[in-house]
């Protein structure tokens, strides 16, 4: 096997058709990097070697993580080889023990269904401003309009659905963008370390000292209230924290034995990053993503509340709150409080579920 320099050779994974690390392992001398990280052989919840309840017998092994035949059959002879419960399964188990988190999760699913599926069953005019001339404005809840109408005559219940849909879509897309940038930046910085890391972290210091809201407002004053622009800018201002945490994860993970093993066998940086660092920080990433969605929804709502939300005839929850704030002085409670409650539940759900996920993750680590 020819030694390779980092990143010189074209990327084709480690040793395809050559003596790769998996073959080496069957000789029993070198630790399989895939094993020492994500998977432990037959270790129960309490660290004993036992058949864990709910653990499945190792038959349909993942092709990516599959063990060489020789190893598996040796283990089969010694004892029935069971696949340890996966990370997701363990986290799920701890997560559902947290009753409050489960309640919040159900509420979140309900509100998502309400926003996306609701309009299919509850038809209201949410687009045609001209047709609204016929509808009385600020109508209190009653027959025909379960939550009344707003200051333009839009049906409030339908309005909540439209606003919820837009808020959730913007939240998810912006958070997705923030996660991709943050994970990429953080892992790149932490993995490379040294001068590159120093430089990238100084840039992050600069960005961290500018409140994101001001940058988003600057973008709006330059480009106007354009929804895709808002997603872009909320995403572009939401990744700093993610980058920081992923950077410190990468800093520790790159020194782990399995990363060193890959390196010593001539594996490229890309392999270490994609096969070891990112999979091992997936739980941090999932937790952070949950918070990121909440934060993005909040950022959009803050914009809407300041009067720079998604433009009429469409809307978002922040804009509804902004309009409802005006109606508050007139005691039109139905224009403000239902939207406030929905919005608050969604923001709290993402916060609490993120917390619960982090706890689930810590418990998983303790059980190891």
């Amino acid at each position, binding site marked *: 096997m020819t030694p390779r320099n980092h990143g010189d050779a074209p990327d084709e994974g480690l040793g395809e058709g050559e003596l790769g690390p998996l073959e080496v392992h069957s000789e029993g001398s070198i630790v399989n990097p895939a094993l020492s990280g994500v998977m432990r052989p037959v270790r129960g919840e309490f660290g004993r070697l036992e058949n864990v309840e709910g653990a499945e017998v190792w038959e349909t092994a993942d092709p990516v993580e599959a063990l060489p035949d020789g190893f598996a059959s040796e283990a089969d002879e010694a004892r029935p080889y069971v696949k340890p419960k996966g990370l997701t399964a363990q986290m799920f188990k701890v997560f559902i023990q947290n009753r409050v988190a489960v309640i919040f999760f159900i509420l979140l699913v309900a509100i998502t269904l309400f926003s996306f599926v609701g309009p299919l069953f509850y038809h209201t005019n949410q687009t045609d401003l001209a047709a609204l001339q016929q509808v009385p404005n600020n109508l209190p809840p009653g027959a025909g309009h379960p939550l009344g109408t707003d200051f333009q005559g839009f049906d409030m219940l339908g309005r909540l659905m439209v606003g919820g849909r837009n808020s959730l879509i913007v939240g998810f897309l912006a958070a997705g963008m923030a996660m991709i940038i943050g994970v990429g930046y953080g892992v790149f910085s932490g993995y490379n370390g040294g001068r590159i890391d120093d430089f990238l972290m*100084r840039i992050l210091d*600069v960005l961290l*000292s*500018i*409140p994101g809201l001001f940058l988003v407002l*600057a973008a*709006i004053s*330059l480009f106007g209230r354009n929804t895709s622009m808002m997603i872009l800018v909320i995403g572009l201002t939401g990744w700093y924290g993610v980058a920081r945490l992923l950077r410190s994860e990468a800093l520790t993970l790159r020194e782990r034995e399995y990363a060193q093993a890959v390196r010593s066998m001539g594996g490229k940086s890309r392999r270490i990053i994609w096969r070891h660092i990112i999979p091992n920080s997936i739980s941090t990433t999932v937790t952070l993503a949950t918070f990121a969605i909440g934060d993005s929804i909040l950022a959009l709502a803050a914009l809407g509340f300041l009067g720079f939300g998604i433009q009429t005839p469409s809307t978002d929850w922040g804009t509804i709150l902004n309009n409802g704030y005006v109606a*508050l002085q007139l005691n039109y409670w139905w224009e403000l409080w239902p939207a406030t409650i929905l919005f608050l539940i969604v923001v709290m759900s993402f*916060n609490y579920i993120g917390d619960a996920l982090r706890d689930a993750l810590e418990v998983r680590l303790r059980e190891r």
Partner: protein
Amino acid sequence: MLVYLVRRLFQGLIVILGVTIVTFFIPASFHANIARELYGIRAPQSVIDKFNHDNYFDRSIPVQYLHYMNNLLHGNLGVSFNKDASFQSVTSIIGDALFNTLWLVLASLVIALVIAIPLGLFQALKRNTAFDYVATGAVFVIYSTPAFVLGLVLIQVFCIKFHVFPYSPTVSSRTGPFARLIDMFQYPRSYVLPVAVLTGLSVGGFSRFMRGSVLDTLVQDYIRTARAKGASSNRVLFRHAFRNAIIPIVTILGLSLPSLFGGAVITETLFNISGMGTVTVYAVEGNDIAVVMAATLLIAVATVVGNLISDLSVAAIDPRIRLMARK
């Protein structure tokens, strides 16, 4: 300490320099037509050219940046790009707004700490009791309630329903950087709600952090040593545990500034207080990127200075930081 101070100051300057690059380049990349927008389509080309020449817009980007920095160092934040503002200087538009916001944020920080530190301490001491659970739950609700929702609830309850507090703070005719600070002491009742909203934004995070920090400290070896040598439990708590537990809080103080300034924007809009938030929102409505960027820069500088102060305070409390810096 001096080495640490100088190094930290230098780092702060670099960050501020980075911020000026951001605040310079965002408008510089898009202001090609600003003169046209200001003077209108019918203005003669000579007027446009003169405006561009006077503002260095016809020069190369590095020269423009140097001009911008030169202006900044002379306290000149540039010219407003708002047509209706009739070429007012940004400095005069912002005026005392920065100080108004600073007093609001500082007042809320002080109150948040006064509440959060004892609360977190008691939660840690009485951990896993009913008190702890109730406090943790309440803190979580406040922590995850956005500023404007908290503000709406407070206004509904205390202004509209019960008329306990006025809706908008009383503003005297005083001017100058300390005007609003004096107002706060003169009319404390009218500032309760806005300060409460901003306090709610930070108090949850602080008390959660304080609880965790005290819990971490209480299991340290030096606490056991202090107990073993016979120190009274009050002495252990306040001389040994508290002093160590407070260090992360001081760091968090500095780091929470950006979100607090963001919250101040919302609070000021909500309660109609003149400050950086209202100035910025007004500028965004008028597409006045010059004012928005100047506000961003000022807030960023305030954040960097705040971080610097918090880091230096940590170094003052914690000798380990000072010693590490010497190496």
